[in-house]
């Protein structure tokens, strides 16, 4: 008998259609993954199942959990079911916990509101549950003292404290590092087997899906387009959207060979022994201030026309390094030079160097001043030039930059809110290209994009390399992306570059244990058995 069965679920919020005829069912001990891009309705399906839809939502159809139709159940009974018959884990562990309560109290609360038991007993069981999910800190700690991975374990402990029949996990590992992700996924898998519960996993990451799911549900724009047992679906995809989605996820760009540059003696970018330290709060009142070494003797170089990747987990120093290279922050030790000129001189960034360097940031929604038009946004780097083009020359430059990234000159007079995330990232690239820099830094530039859009932007980057000799530093936590767009890769851990080499060499034959663990932890998309058309 299935524990969860959703039949013809449709949902409107206000005037907007969110879900159409969504159906799925799952058994005890089964992991069902709902996947799709943003706006596909996967999270709303999860919230409908929990009965936690926002106000004004009008769901229709049936959601039968263990014989009870959620949609017909009054709110007071739903409260008894939540946490008891079904539990939920959310995406953002940093904000999912109440900051002013201890973690033990928050887990115990699940037990206390559903069972008549003493406070001491509930806290004892909470402590056991925290141990079961692999948390090695005391239940008396507060959330802010824990890392993201640890907090996610607390949220899981809360959700499973009463051994619910159904656990819903909405992007539970998206905000986590790849090694932490692997641990959390292992934990979820173990818990499903041990408690014989059903796990409804919501994720956009197809590699995760292929890795852990027993059954896959692919959604697009509020509809289920394809569903089936994982092995069967992977080898036998029917719907074009499913195929396109998998293709885009494993998308390999056709990166042109590095054009051999005229022999230049110096490196384009050369960083020698960089050290950057941040002071930490004092441990004792009069003691010395401890320091955090964000960059610890980092040395590397980038050649003219070379495409270099930088990978590492959050907190490894990637962002600090980016800021140091861009000359946004000075370093305490070492030397960073571009074309043999220091990026930072006498406490001031060196404008001569800045001219040769531009950056594309991660978040397409925060990268632009919402009050300026595109033409003003993308010409901001002209500020670096001594004689910025005016009149016709300026228009020509705008037109060329926009066309280079697949947009048109008409777009120059629009405001940024008129563009989608992918288009915004194109505009960000146009802004970086407009002064024809020698080096571009892509700082997690495709990480916030849906897979299909990501594939297009990656293709665009490869395309640009074909048009001009382009050197870039591609910073990402996503190994598969770095693998496809770089010639050489550097691996960073705790402020140090622990390994660097030709991209293929490092990926196929990693030397450093950390690199090995990173590659092992990254979920792999299975090789698709047949060729598929692109989107």
């Amino acid at each position, binding site marked *: 008998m299935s524990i969860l069965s959703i039949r013809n679920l449709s949902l409107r919020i206000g005037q907007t259609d969110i879900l159409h005829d969504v159906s799925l069912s799952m058994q005890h001990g089964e992991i069902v993954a709902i996947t799709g891009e943003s706006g596909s309705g996967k999270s709303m399906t999860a919230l409908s199942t929990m009965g936690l839809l926002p106000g004004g939502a009008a769901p229709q159809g049936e959601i039968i959990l263990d014989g009870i139709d959620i949609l017909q159940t009054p709110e007071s009974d739903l409260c008894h079911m939540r946490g008891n018959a079904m539990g939920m884990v959310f995406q953002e562990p940093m904000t999912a916990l109440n900051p002013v309560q201890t973690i033990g109290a928050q887990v115990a609360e699940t037990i206390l509101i559903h069972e008549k038991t003493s406070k001491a007993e509930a806290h004892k069981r909470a402590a056991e549950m925290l141990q079961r999910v692999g948390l090695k800190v005391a239940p008396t700690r507060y959330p802010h003292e824990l890392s993201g991975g640890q907090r996610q374990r607390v949220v899981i402990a809360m959700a499973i404290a009463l051994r619910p029949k159904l656990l819903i996990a909405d992007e539970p590992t998206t905000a986590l590092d790849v090694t932490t992700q692997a641990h959390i996924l292992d934990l979820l898998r173990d818990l499903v087997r041990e408690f014989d519960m059903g796990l409804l996993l919501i994720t956009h990451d197809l590699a995760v899906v292929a890795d852990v799911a027993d059954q896959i549900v692919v959604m697009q724009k509020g509809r289920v387009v394809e569903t089936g047992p994982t092995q069967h679906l992977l080898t036998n995809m029917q719907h074009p959207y499913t195929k396109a989605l998998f293709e885009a996820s494993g998308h390999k760009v056709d990166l042109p060979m590095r054009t051999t540059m005229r022999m230049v003696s110096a490196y384009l970018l050369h960083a020698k022994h960089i050290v950057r330290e941040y002071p930490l709060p004092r441990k004792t009142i009069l003691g010395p201030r401890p320091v955090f070494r964000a960059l610890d003797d980092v040395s590397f170089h980038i050649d003219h026309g070379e495409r270099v990747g930088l990978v590492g987990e959050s907190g490894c120093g990637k962002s600090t390094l980016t800021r140091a290279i861009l000359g946004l922050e000075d370093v305490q030790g070492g030397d960073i030079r571009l074309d043999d000129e220091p990026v930072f001189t006498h406490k001031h960034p060196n404008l001569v160097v*800045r001219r040769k360097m531009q950056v594309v940031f991660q978040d397409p929604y925060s*990268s*632009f001043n*919402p009050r300026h038009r595109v033409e003003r946004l993308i010409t*901001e*780097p002209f500020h670096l030039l001594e004689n910025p083009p005016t009149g016709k020359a300026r228009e020509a430059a705008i037109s060329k930059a926009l066309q280079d990234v697949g947009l048109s000159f008409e777009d120059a007079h629009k405001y940024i809110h008129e563009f989608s995330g992918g288009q915004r990232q194109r505009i960000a690239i146009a802004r970086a290209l407009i002064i024809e820099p020698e080096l571009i830094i892509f700082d997690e530039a495709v990480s916030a994009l849906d897979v299909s859009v990501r594939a297009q932007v990656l293709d665009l980057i490869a395309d640009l390399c074909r048009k001009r000799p382009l050197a870039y530093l591609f910073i990402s936590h996503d190994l598969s992306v770095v693998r496809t767009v770089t010639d050489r890769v550097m691996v960073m851990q705790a402020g140090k570059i622990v390994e660097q080499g030709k991209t293929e060499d490092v990926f196929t034959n990693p030397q450093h244990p950390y690199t090995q663990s990173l590659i092992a932890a990254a979920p792999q998309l299975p090789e698709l058995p047949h060729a598929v058309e692109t989107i």
Partner: protein
Amino acid sequence: MSRNLIIGTALSALFVTLAAVSFLWTPHDIETLDIPNKLQTPSGTHVLGTDHFGRDILSMIMMGARTSIAVALVAVGIGMAIGIPLGLLAAARRGALLDELIMRGNDLVFAFPSLVIAILITAVFGASAVNAIIAIGIFNIPVFARLTRGAALPLWERDFILAARVCGKSAARISVEHILPNITNLMIVQGTIQFSLGILAEAALSYIGLGAQPPTASWGRMLADAQTLVSIAPHTALVPGFAILLMVLGLNLLGDGLRDWLDPRIRVARV
């Protein structure tokens, strides 16, 4: 247009018009006393009645609106003109000593409520409308400085500011070009709120004799005069009180309406 915005604009416009018209015309002259006709209840000749000197209350209200609006407006101007640049500067130098100094200075000014500032100034320079402006204006400075800094700090972390820095723009230029336009809405809304608080503060200061002095008409003064007469001629206290209430209410509704219209996410500070 929301209901708040319509009612707020109408009420505010009413008092601004009354004040403006008073420059050209008032129903009666308020400089001449007419003791025989004192404390008259509202009638055809005196729409809102007369006070204890027989002066026409409507005319007094019109002249008083002038004082209130002038004092509150200039005080908001002082607060914005000094507070916003300070806030921008503090945000641009966030974490540095200068930021710390500005913010500590703000805390210090906050420890002096505008009434206490008024007391200090009056004790040394004597009471006047100008002193009321200075007292309220000084109090407005940290309000705007804090708000500006608070709104500017998250903007400084946004990628578009980083992009501008990568383009070599100075902190001052970024503050003017990128930060300021993105906090304008907030400042307009808070400015409206401070304007209304200024009206209240001016009335309170002139009520206790620390603000505008006779013969300058002011709503607070009118209430002070009415205090001993409240049992025999309630209208002398009710009319100026309702004038303050409606003007402040109008400005607050206008502020709320503007916020909903410009950007519902704006959070104003109200103390």
